[in-house]
């Protein structure tokens, strides 16, 4: 097989990634409290602060209370942020700073397995974070029916998507500073444009069109009705867009990581 063929080959999926996932889990278990605090306190503060503070001035938004509106957005945005942080800063540490991947690659585990482990691990943390926000929202009476369980697979796919996108940045990054570009040019715009805090219909046409191209928009468009006992309109379209982002992102992360490390 030529070098190009190896780089662009489809990812080889197997369960060999599990020991690497377990390694990351073991590290996380030692740092559970600060880690959970970081992944949970931040989104909850936004949700409660804006939800109750701003919500007091806004009687309703799209037929629901403002805090219920923002709760659905927060489940998605906290998933996005947790996956992104893990797949960038933490994966970069393991790949480049601590050389953990080098140690692993000297064993029967290969780079495809490591990339899969990193994506699944970041998605696992992100799922935990999204589910924790959903749980708090449910305890506050902000979910209306069992339909809200639809958020479980949604958050998982969203976690895999942003883990993959983050890992693309990691594969391209010369240093930690590089991630600021992605935060400023991708994650912050998504936080603000994708319907987390207000309906995208409020935006000018051009920004609305841009928002439609972003993955977080489609996740929020699914999550909000599901939490409020409504089947999302165009659910198939939203699901397909998210899945495509997820698959394309994962493939690209794999190709770019191979290109960086298998020279």
């Amino acid at each position: 097989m030529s070098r190009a063929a190896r780089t662009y080959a489809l990812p080889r999926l197997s369960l060999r990634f599990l020991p690497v996932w377990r390694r990351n889990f073991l590290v996380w278990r030692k740092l559970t409290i600060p880690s959970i605090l970081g992944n949970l306190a931040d989104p909850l503060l936004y949700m409660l602060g804006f939800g109750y503070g701003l919500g007091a001035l806004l009687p309703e938004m799209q037929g629901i209370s403002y805090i219920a509106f923002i709760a659905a957005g927060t489940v998605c945005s906290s998933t996005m942020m947790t996956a992104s942080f893990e797949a960038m800063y933490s994966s970069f540490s393991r790949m480049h700073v601590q050389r953990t991947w080098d140690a692993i690659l000297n064993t029967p585990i290969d780079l495809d397995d490591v990339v899969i482990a990193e994506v699944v691990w970041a998605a696992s943390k992100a799922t935990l974070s999204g589910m924790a926000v959903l749980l708090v929202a449910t305890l506050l009476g902000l979910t209306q029916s069992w339909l809200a369980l639809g958020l479980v697979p949604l958050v998982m796919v969203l976690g895999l998507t942003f883990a993959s996108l983050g890992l693309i940045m990691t594969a391209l990054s010369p240093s930690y500073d590089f991630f600021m570009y992605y935060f400023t040019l991708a994650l912050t715009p998504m936080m603000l444009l994708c319907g987390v805090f207000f309906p995208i219909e409020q935006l000018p046409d051009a920004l609305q069109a841009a928002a439609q191209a972003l993955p977080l928009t489609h996740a929020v468009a699914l999550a909000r009705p599901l939490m409020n006992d409504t089947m999302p309109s165009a659910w198939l379209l939203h699901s397909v867009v998210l899945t495509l982002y997820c698959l394309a992102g994962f493939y690209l992360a794999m190709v770019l990581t191979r290109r960086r490390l298998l020279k």
Partner: protein
Amino acid sequence: MRKRYGESEVVAGVDLQLRSGECFGLLGPNGAGKTTTLRLCLGLTAPDAGSIRLIGIDVIADPRQARARVGVVPQMDNLDPDFTVEENLVVYGRYFGLADREIRARIPELLEFAGLATRAQARINTLSGGMKRRLTLARALVNDPDLIFLDEPTTGLDPQARHLIWGRLKQLVADGKTLFLTTHFMDEAERLCDRLSVLDHGRIVASGAPRALIAQHIEPQVVEVYGDGVAAWAERHGRSLAERCEHSGETVFCYTHDAAPLVAHLEPRHDLRYLHRHANLEDVFMKLTGRELRD
């Protein structure tokens, strides 16, 4: 094996064969192609041409199975800083598909070998450089490999720590393991290696047992001369008294079969100082790879 990066052929036709149970050394200046050779051997990168077999397993076709039988001590420490000594071994053993029970059964022996029996629960950042190296060596043994690759295993260690590592490596060879070692410490290679090859510009320029290489390439006696005016001295006297002189920095290296006339000439001089010794592997290395600095 051949491997090209862009215009430069980093490994330009390297042919190596290890014998079971020996310690083999690969020597070469920085940039000679040692690291790329190791990466090729481990199946971490694919050669442009050639074939590689480890313990009878085709590395290109089945790198995973080959690595299952091999241990690696990398040049840069990459122990898991968040884990204890014991956890490092357990987690690493899992990468080989070993069950926790199997790994835990091996840990006392591995810690004993590494001289870390009392440090099982210690955090990595509390260990000295020498302890970390020994733990890395123990980690490379977690799968009970037949062949162990060591990439500059004693770089950055103090002399005591280095001697301890050498002792452990000799013990491994005595236990029947095969070692593949890269180093640029010539005394290390001379002490440990049964055979070695010198790599330069991606090619093997010499191979053999350390003593045989010295006998083959270098006059047996060396006199190192240094002091003010040593260059002028070499021109006027050195070249006639020795068979060969090499000037490097502040020192002139004189190579000869009989150093007596040279020593008799130097002894009464107070402007120059000298050191008379047997030729060693470093002399061979310098002769084969040149004295200019490699970056």
